């Protein structure tokens, strides 16, 4: 066991020492931080706007407009009486960035519902929407008032409807929206695919390195080939978990630092609180990790065998193709899986061990999987891991000492039987 431990440690330490490990370890948080900063900057763009309300109504209606808009979150409005040269001087103020814009209110507003808004920035949809909604409510109120309706009744009638969407999954109601769970499932599938492929190929190149440098002969005189393979797979797996850990912890930290980051960027810290990560339930994380582990073990055993049967990089690249294609099946099915996670197609993929490491977490996240199905999927995967590892180990122990041409299918069968 101490010997296996030595192999695990070597595999781990040597991988973590490479610059590629740190590049990808840093790239994750940088990307995530970029998203946060981008969103804060976005929210800064949507900060308070100071506007003038140019009032040419006889009734002084502009005062009520300014009041109603200032009650909202986005606008701080001030009434200005209309007069000669007012529009020109306001335009100059907007150009000098002293003012964000101005709204021209005439008698037409209550009659035909027309008003004009001039501003330096009219591309913020949420700001325009708020402006329009505020004006609309006020106009409805004024129109009804002129017909003698009690203003209190009007206010009551205009209480807006807030539609809360919640997902029902496995007998529980979560706060997740449909869009969020789709995105989450998609991101998970991509992550699983990349991680299994990357770290599986790592195992392969590590096996190949020992073979081409011929160091393997000394190793198998001290360790059983299976111990060596086991140490490699566990070592590479530990590296991938370490990578996930770095990403997870730094994402958490960045989320907690949203406030200070926002203040640093000169934005209202409260604005940053608005961004939320989709809430990921513990069960989903557990399913993700379990199937990553299973998929990694299954595929890295195959990649180890591929490394052992090849004698150089080029041969290995060719020999790994069938294994990669096997993994690609689930990758290309991601869209189909997320669109209809309870189809027969999706059900089949989540039971076949070569596709289930990606298909099952996707279906689980999308919320269309019974616990019994999950257990069945996991059980089949576990059996497949044992079987595939057994076959791979037999190919491995013959292959690592072999030089010369790549074995034919017939020879491989003989190795496995031997």
């Amino acid at each position, binding site marked *: 066991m*101490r010997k296996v431990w*030595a*192999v695990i440690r*070597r595999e781990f330490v*040597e991988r973590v020492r490479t610059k590629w490990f740190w590049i990808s370890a840093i790239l994750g948080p940088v990307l995530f931080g970029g998203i946060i900063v981008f969103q804060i900057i976005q929210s800064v763009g949507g900060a308070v706007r100071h506007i003038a309300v140019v009032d040419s109504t006889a009734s002084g209606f502009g005062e009520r407009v300014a009041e109603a808009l200032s009650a909202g979150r986005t606008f701080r409005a001030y009434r200005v009486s209309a007069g000669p040269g007012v529009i020109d001087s306001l335009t100059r103020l907007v150009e000098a960035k002293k003012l964000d814009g101005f709204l021209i209110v005439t008698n037409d507003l209550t009659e035909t519902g027309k008003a004009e808004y001039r501003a330096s920035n009219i591309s913020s949809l949420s700001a325009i929407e708020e402006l329009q909604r505020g004006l609309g409510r006020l106009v409805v109120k004024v129109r009804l008032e002129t017909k003698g309706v009690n203003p209190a009744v009007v206010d009551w009638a205009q209480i807006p409807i807030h539609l809360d969407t919640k997902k029902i999954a496995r007998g529980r109601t979560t706060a997740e929206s449909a869009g969020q769970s789709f995105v989450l499932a998609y991101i998970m599938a991509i992550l699983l695919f990349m991680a299994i492929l990357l770290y599986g190929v790592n195992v392969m190149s590590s096996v190949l390195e*020992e073979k081409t440098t*011929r160091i393997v002969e000394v190793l198998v005189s*001290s360790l059983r080939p299976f111990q060596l393979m086991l140490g490699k797979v566990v070592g590479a797996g530990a590296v991938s978990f370490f990578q996930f850990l770095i990403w997870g912890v730094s994402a958490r930290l960045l989320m907690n630092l949203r406030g200070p980051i926002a203040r640093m960027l000169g934005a209202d810290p409260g604005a940053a609180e608005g961004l939320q990560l989709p809430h990921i339930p513990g069960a989903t994380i557990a399913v993700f990790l379990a199937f990553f582990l299973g998929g990694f073990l299954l595929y890295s055993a195959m990649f180890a065998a591929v490394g052992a049967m090849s004698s150089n990089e080029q041969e290995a690249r060719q020999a790994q193709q069938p294994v990669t294609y096997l993994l690609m099946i689930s990758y290309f099915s991601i869209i189909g899986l997320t669109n209809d996670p309870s189809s027969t197609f999706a059900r089949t993929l989540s039971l076949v061990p070569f596709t289930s490491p990606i298909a099952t977490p996707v279906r689980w996240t999308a919320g269309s999987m019974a616990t019994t199905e999950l257990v069945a999927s996991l059980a089949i995967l576990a059996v497949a891991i044992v079987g595939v590892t057994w076959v791979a180990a037999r190919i491995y*122990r013959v292959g690592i000492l072999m*030089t010369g041409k790549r074995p034919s299918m017939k020879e491989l069968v003989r190795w496995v039987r031997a």
Partner: protein
Amino acid sequence: MSEAVVAVDHVTKRFSGHTAVDALSLSVSPGIIYGLLGPNGAGKTTTIRMIMDIYEPDAGTVRLFGTVGGGRNHSARIGYLPEERGLYPRMRVLDVLVFLAEAKGVPRRAARAKALEWLDRLGLADWQFRKVSDLSKGMQQKVQFISTILHDPELVILDEPFSGLDPVNSQVLRDTVVDYRRRGKTVLFSTHIMEHAEKLCDRLCIIARGKKLVDGTLTELKQTHGGKHVIIAFDGSQGAATQIFADRRLVARIQDFGQEAELELAPGADAQEILRALVNSGARLARFELASPSLHKIFVDLVGPEAVTAPAVPSATEAGAHA
């Protein structure tokens, strides 16, 4: 005699129809240098791999230190240098040494201390944190060699240890082997270079085509496979040497190297008669020496010229390794 450190008993190994090692037996007693000699493809490496537990014999048994089973269970007591050598090119020198020792079951701290000691002794102390690939080939050979003996094994098994070594490292290796024997350890090595075997070995085993031809001490070999030998070196004119050497009443066999020749006398022939005949024919001699046969001569006689060009090593593709 105390119990053999390595006892190979009627061991056979076949690779898809081809018999690489055929009912081979050999026994290495403690504290000696044992040479396994044979032409290429004779089965030396296969035999060593069976001793090291890399291959499993199809028949017969291997006993190490008195217990049945190959080298893997005793890896901490054995130093093994395979014919094809290699290190992790991207690892640091010290890390490689520590890892290889750990794989043999040596505790990490002890391995580290020993590695530093050896690096210092062989002048590589400044290189301990450098990558293996930064080292010259000669230095890599030294590192490889350290990895073989770092854990102070009781038994050292070296497969063609001198092949590819530069003269300096060759000397380091020879000194270490001799030093090992002096300290009561056992060395088993294979070679096809006779001079190394002749100078170093206490006991020899010559194999060809997977079979043992002979084994014993060098003296025993020379006595049983010798006959009387004469070594002649010419100094210019060779006179009628060609005719004299062809005389089957005088010379049984000859190895002619041009300016030098090694003769095996015919039974009953007198060396002085040859000397007289040569001088009379006008040959000028630099050397005329009555000698026991060289190991090279015995080897060629036993193996035969056809076995020197032995069948190609079976492609390892066909190899069915067991572990």
